[in-house]
């Protein structure tokens, strides 16, 4: 009897590689200032600024206008309420993500930054492409002391002075009180706006601190809005001096106008608007109003809900989690969230690569790939390549997983068969997108391990089995879609039979270096064949079973 050896794919050829990340970060600068132990990390593609054990800034070395943390983009949202912003104050310099993008995108805007730590300014200059100029000034002192003594009026005041480490948050309490917000209001022009970066969630983790700052803002400003980051646990609060409450259609219209007229060129500006939440946090009434006299920020941050499980949790930059760089660096939040988000933006999404299916991108941004990889290789979990997982098998390159998943056009009601479980990562991705995943692996040890990992991570709609993939899974057939992750010479007939009418199968066919990734669609019992990509998968080797 002929058996199949389902060996998982190796790397795909002819895939446009934008960057081949080394994946390992080196500490290229390390210094202790009176405020922080500061490190600059560099992995060849990205530079990261760390204060103690918290991430402050990330920047692409090739293009310093990219690679930043998502939350800094919400500092551009105030244009929706005030189209005449010309003078901006940013409290907290860090690596200067917001400063750089304001300088680049708005030629008529001048930015004043206040940074308490002179060492940070030095590092921003030396490592993060930051340049002081007429339009880009830095004041080295405490933000509140500066603002109190300043006679300047601003159209926008951005607060980004929050550090989150594993020993709790360091929210400068004097920058979160009613009295401080009054000082800020007095330094704002008529339609002035405050944007405040808070680390936390609307419910659960740090909800008390988010609620308290929200509530405190409402005592000083007529309107407060909230933006929730998709890739991290940051919340950006927007408080306006304007009295009227904006509504979503008006904001959308204005956003389109700003983009169409070319006044806003920030990529993704329109998408960021969908993160807005108009309703205040549900716990608002239970949160205290923070005053100079009573601002228990440590107690609020410590007393909140526990951090979420590592599977669903995203991390929080600017005081956030670290990429998997160095065993000395540990953080409280999921250290893989940032590299995972970067994987999605750099390796999968346009313009670098062409995965456009939002659900697929979301699943890729959600499933913890590192959990499917041997411990010693976890630091490379999100690099742009396949990795060995033992038994001469590999976990595929993220792009190939996303590409095949996208081509399969998964629907929430689908039942999908996978041949070649391997690590279980592809099954987990599918699990996020379809109703049921049936997956077969011929190496018993791998099948067992994948089953254990999938169940540990809570993927209850995946049904793994050890066995011969060539014959498919007749009892569970027919399937809406079949995905094969090893290359046979021709399409196994049992799989064709188990495919539903109208069903899709994606499968690499050929041998050695001459393989094609093929998409098959079953119409009236006949397979329509479309070649997708030249690829190189490990062959589906046939062995004789005793």
């Amino acid at each position, binding site marked *: 009897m002929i058996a199949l050896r389902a060996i998982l794919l190796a790397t795909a050829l002819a895939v446009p590689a934008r960057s081949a990340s080394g994946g390992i970060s080196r500490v290229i600068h390390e210094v202790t200032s009176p405020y922080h132990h500061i490190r600059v990390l560099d992995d060849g593609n990205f530079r990261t600024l760390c204060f103690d054990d918290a991430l402050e800034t990330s920047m692409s070395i090739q293009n310093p206008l990219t690679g930043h943390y998502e939350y800094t983009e919400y500092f551009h949202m105030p244009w929706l309420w005030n189209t005449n912003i010309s003078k901006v104050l940013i409290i907290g310099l860090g690596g200067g993500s917001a400063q750089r993008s304001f300088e680049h995108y708005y030629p008529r805007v001048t930015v004043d930054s206040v940074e*308490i730590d002179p060492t940070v300014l030095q590092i921003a200059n030396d490592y993060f492409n930051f340049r002081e100029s007429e339009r880009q000034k830095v004041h080295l*002192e405490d933000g509140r002391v500066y603002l109190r003594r300043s006679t300047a009026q601003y159209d926008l005041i951005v607060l980004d002075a929050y550090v989150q480490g594993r020993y709790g948050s360091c929210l400068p309490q004097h920058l979160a009180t009613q009295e401080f917000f009054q000082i800020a209001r007095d330094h704002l022009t008529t339609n002035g706006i405050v944007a405040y970066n808070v680390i936390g969630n609307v419910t659960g983790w740090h909800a008390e601190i988010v609620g308290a700052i929200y509530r405190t803002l409402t005592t000083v400003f007529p309107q407060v809005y909230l933006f929730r980051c998709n890739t991290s646990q940051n919340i950006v609060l927007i408080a306006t001096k304007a009295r009227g409450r904006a509504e979503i259609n008006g904001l959308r219209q204005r956003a389109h106008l700003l983009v169409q007229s070319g006044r806003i060129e920030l990529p993704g500006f329109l998408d960021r608007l969908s993160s807005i939440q108009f309703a205040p946090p549900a716990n608002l009434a239970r949160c205290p109003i923070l005053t*100079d*006299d009573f601002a228990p920020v440590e107690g609020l941050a410590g007393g909140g809900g526990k951090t979420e499980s590592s599977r669903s949790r995203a991390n929080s930059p600017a005081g956030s989690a670290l990429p998997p760089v160095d065993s000395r660096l540990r953080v409280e939040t999921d250290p893989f969230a940032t590299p995972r988000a970067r994987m999605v933006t750099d390796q999968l999404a346009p313009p670098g690569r062409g995965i456009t299916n939002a659900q697929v991108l979301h699943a890729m941004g959600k499933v913890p790939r590192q959990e499917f990889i041997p411990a010693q290789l976890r630091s490379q979990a999100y690099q742009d390549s396949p990795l060995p997982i033992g038994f001469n098998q590999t976990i595929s390159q993220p792009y190939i997983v996303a590409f095949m998943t996208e081509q399969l056009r998964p629907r929430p009601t689908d039942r999908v068969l996978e041949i070649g479980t391997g690590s279980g990562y592809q099954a987990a991705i599918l699990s996020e997108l379809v109703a049921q995943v049936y997956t077969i692996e011929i190496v018993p040890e791998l099948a067992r391990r994948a089953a254990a990992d999938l169940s540990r991570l809570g993927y209850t709609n995946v049904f793994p089995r050890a066995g011969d993939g060539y014959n498919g899974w007749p009892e569970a057939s027919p399937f809406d879609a079949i995905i094969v992750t090893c290359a046979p010479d021709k399409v196994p007939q049992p799989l064709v039979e188990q495919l539903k009418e109208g069903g899709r199968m994606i499968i690499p066919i050929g041998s050695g270096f001459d393989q094609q990734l093929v998409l098959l669609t079953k119409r009236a019992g006949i397979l329509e064949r479309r070649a997708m990509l030249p690829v190189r998968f490990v062959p589906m080797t046939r062995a004789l079973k005793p």
Partner: protein
Amino acid sequence: MRRTLAATLVFIGGFIIMVLEIVGARFLAKDFGSSFHVWVSQIGVVLIALAVGYYVGGALGDRWQRLSGLAFLLFPAGGLLLSLPNWADWLIGWIVTRHPEEQAIPPLWQKLDPVLGSALVFLLPCVVLATLSPYMIRLATHNIAQVGRSSGFIIASSTVGSIAGVFVAGFLLIDRVRLSDIFRIMGGLTVILGIFCLVFDRLWLALPAARVTQPKT
């Protein structure tokens, strides 16, 4: 007996000093920011207060030799702390606003302003509270042969009080009680210490001193 009373007194004194130091740093932040200089100032000023208080307390102990003498120091200190929320803001406001608005504060004053603010607000009460230890060593010791043990016990009690003050202030009070109320509570405690000194003044003399072990000759 005298030693136990003395230890209680200095324990509370040490407690109040450290609550003032920790909570005071938070209080200064709203005007001087959360700069490193604020913490340096606060620690420096409290240490100055301790040095002055130890010296003065020892000298006064030798001169007055009565428990009631402390009440004359503790009442004004308590009064200062009780009323601190009413005058400290004004005083610190004066320090900050004396620099012209549109000029950067000179680097020297960036460092010295928090020292000045901290000293004006916290130095006097802390000096008074620091006098307790040497003063009580003097009162609780009647035999030169006991000085080592007596002073060791009292200084240790005061330090244990300080340790308690640090953790209670930093981990409990900050999260639960308004800053102004913390200052008022510490002021109240200081006044109570003063009353205690008055009440026990006469009793003190009647209390048995620690047993004297006569050195064999």
